[in-house]
């Protein structure tokens, strides 16, 4: 095992983390501001990927597809908020889980109805094809570097949006006291729709970017959704900073676990068995880390003050 391989795996972990951050940021924002558990967040990720694949296939341009995915997922988010989610703010979490679970089923079968049962094709744009040499690493896939770049830009953008703009101020105010900012004349209903659409657009962006790396198919959002929930629980629900740190922690731990655990077991066991046990433990690793963190910090690493 070389240093180059180790650095490459760290980059892989970082890239997975950045992708999770795009999902988790929207999820945690929606939970923080509106107190809503949105299981259908993974469906918005799927909507983004399908929109990008369909538009890219029709126009031949990934970039137009990417714009379309942002528009489609934000629109899907806004419509869902107005039609369904709006009625759920005053209900308890169980009702929210049930309703948003129903949304998952509707989105999934809706996509299947629109695009058919077979997975869609979405390729990486020509500009980002192939691998580039990195000092100390050898070859590294250009597109993954681009995903890391986009993640960093989004993280900085969100920070400015929340800390420096009027919209961000309202979001923060909405988080602390919903009735009070309503009484001060802020249109809280529109604010919620905007926040929900923003979260949806981030999920759609993640879906479109990841869709080029894997298969665009019905149900692609749910595995990511589970990881995104782990991220926001680790990071502290409602905290964007927590989502960023949680996402990178989960990404790196998951990647390094998959890579290193079988190797560690191989020191004492035959290769085939070490592979099996290592893989089994690697798939549990992030949950073990989550349990460990919650044992010491029950409300996550960067809990928003309640």
């Amino acid at each position, binding site marked *: 095992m070389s240093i180059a391989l180790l650095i490459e795996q760290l980059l892989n972990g970082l890239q997975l983390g950045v992708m999770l951050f795009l999902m988790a940021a929207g999820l945690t924002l929606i939970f923080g501001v509106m107190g809503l558990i949105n299981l259908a967040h993974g469906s918005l990720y799927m909507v983004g990927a399908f929109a990008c694949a369909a538009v890219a296939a029709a126009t031949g341009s990934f970039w137009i597809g990417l714009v379309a995915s942002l528009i489609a997922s934000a629109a899907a988010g806004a419509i869902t908020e107005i039609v369904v989610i709006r009625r759920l703010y005053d209900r308890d979490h169980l009702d929210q889980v049930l309703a948003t679970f129903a949304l998952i089923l509707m989105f999934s079968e809706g996509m299947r109805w629109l695009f058919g049962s077979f*997975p869609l094709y979405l390729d990486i744009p020509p500009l980002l094809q192939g*691998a580039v040499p990195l000092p100390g690493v050898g*070859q590294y896939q250009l597109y993954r570097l681009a995903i890391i770049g986009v993640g960093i830009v989004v993280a900085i953008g969100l920070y400015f949006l929340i800390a420096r703009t009027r919209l961000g101020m309202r979001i923060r105010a909405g988080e602390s006291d919903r009735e009070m900012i309503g009484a001060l004349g802020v249109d809280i209903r529109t604010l919620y729709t905007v926040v929900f659409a923003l979260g949806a657009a981030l999920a759609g962006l993640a879906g479109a970017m990841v869709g080029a790396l*894997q298969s665009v*198919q019905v149900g*692609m959002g749910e595995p990511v959704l589970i990881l995104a929930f782990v991220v926001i629980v680790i990071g502290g629900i409602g905290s964007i900073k927590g989502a960023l740190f949680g996402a990178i922690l989960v990404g790196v731990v998951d990647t390094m676990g998959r890579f290193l655990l079988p190797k560690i077991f191989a020191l004492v066991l035959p290769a*085939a068995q070490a592979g*099996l046990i290592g*893989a*089994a433990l690697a798939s549990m690793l992030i949950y073990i880390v989550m349990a460990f963190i919650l044992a010491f910090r029950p409300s996550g690493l960067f809990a928003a003050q309640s």
Partner: protein
Amino acid sequence: MKKTIAAGIFGLTLATAGLANAEPVKIGVITTLSGGGAGLGTDMRDAFVLAMKQSGNKDVELVIEDDAQKPEIAVQIAEKMIQSDKVDLMTGIIWSNLAMAVVPNAVSQDIIYLSPNAGPSALAGAKCSPNYFNVAYQNDNFHEAMGQYANKDYKKTFILAPNYPAGKDSLTGFKRYYKGELAGEIYTQVGQTDYAAEIAQIRDSGADSVFFFLPGGMGIAFMKQYAQSGVNIPVMGPSFSFSQDILPAVGDAALGVKNSASWAKDLDNEANKAFVEAFQAEYNRLPSVYAAQSWDTANLILSAMAKASVKDKDAFRAALKAADFKSVRGDFSFNTNNHPIQNIYVREVIKEGDVLTNKIIGTAFEKHGDAYAEQCKM
């Protein structure tokens, strides 16, 4: 998570029994028609329905239901088909874990089950049954073929598969015939979509070839990421990641990849030509290996119906076992454990115009059975 999505039942071409002595046969088809795996089930169903339609046989009634790729739903549907629909035969299941949940129970109630795809090792060996016919393959077969084929060109292969029973069967099957050294052996998570960590290890391992079994979306993700990684080691695998339903989503990344299967659309026999033509004319797409196996299953049933009444179970089982039908795979017969003895081919992904498809480039095994037949006592 229980998906109770439009599980449609459509009885098909049920005409009033014309002939007095013709015994109508009711066939229960449980397959995956919703969710991520729906492409496979759709191909299975379409080929089956088309074969029945083409035969013009009026004595067949189909009960088709969607299992949503969930074992618990498949079990409920099977129970309903046996108890209230009173089906004579069952077929359709795509996935091994669903087959394991449904088949042992169904065959113990004297229902004849014909598998158009899954072939878990347990049902081929100790748990085999006279009521269970596998028309597709035993799970290890395609992987064994790739192991055999790899001996020709490769000395150091890196192998990977998901960490679940079919994944373990796969690597066991590959290693049963592969004589070279292993550069690495990795079990990935089921449903994993990011393979950067595994590809980095392949790059680092000094392997001269890669064998992988990653069905469905996992394989699409792996192939796309592999093609972008700058790793140029040749890839091979069973046909599941290179079948007609998946190739359009993988794209050009799949070009040139060697894969193993019992069937390809260019297999030279009359039955196959007629099948590919009919399927394309009806559905306007190329059939996959799942469609081919399902087509054979339907024709096997029709051949047995011509010989025996389904009410006389012994005679009907004997008629099935004779396998007296024109298989699109050429020579086809049943082993002692009711699993196929057939050729397994090596195919290469090519481009015909704009369409990615497979072409046969060699035969890995002739008249190949499976490793578990000896354990089957019936």
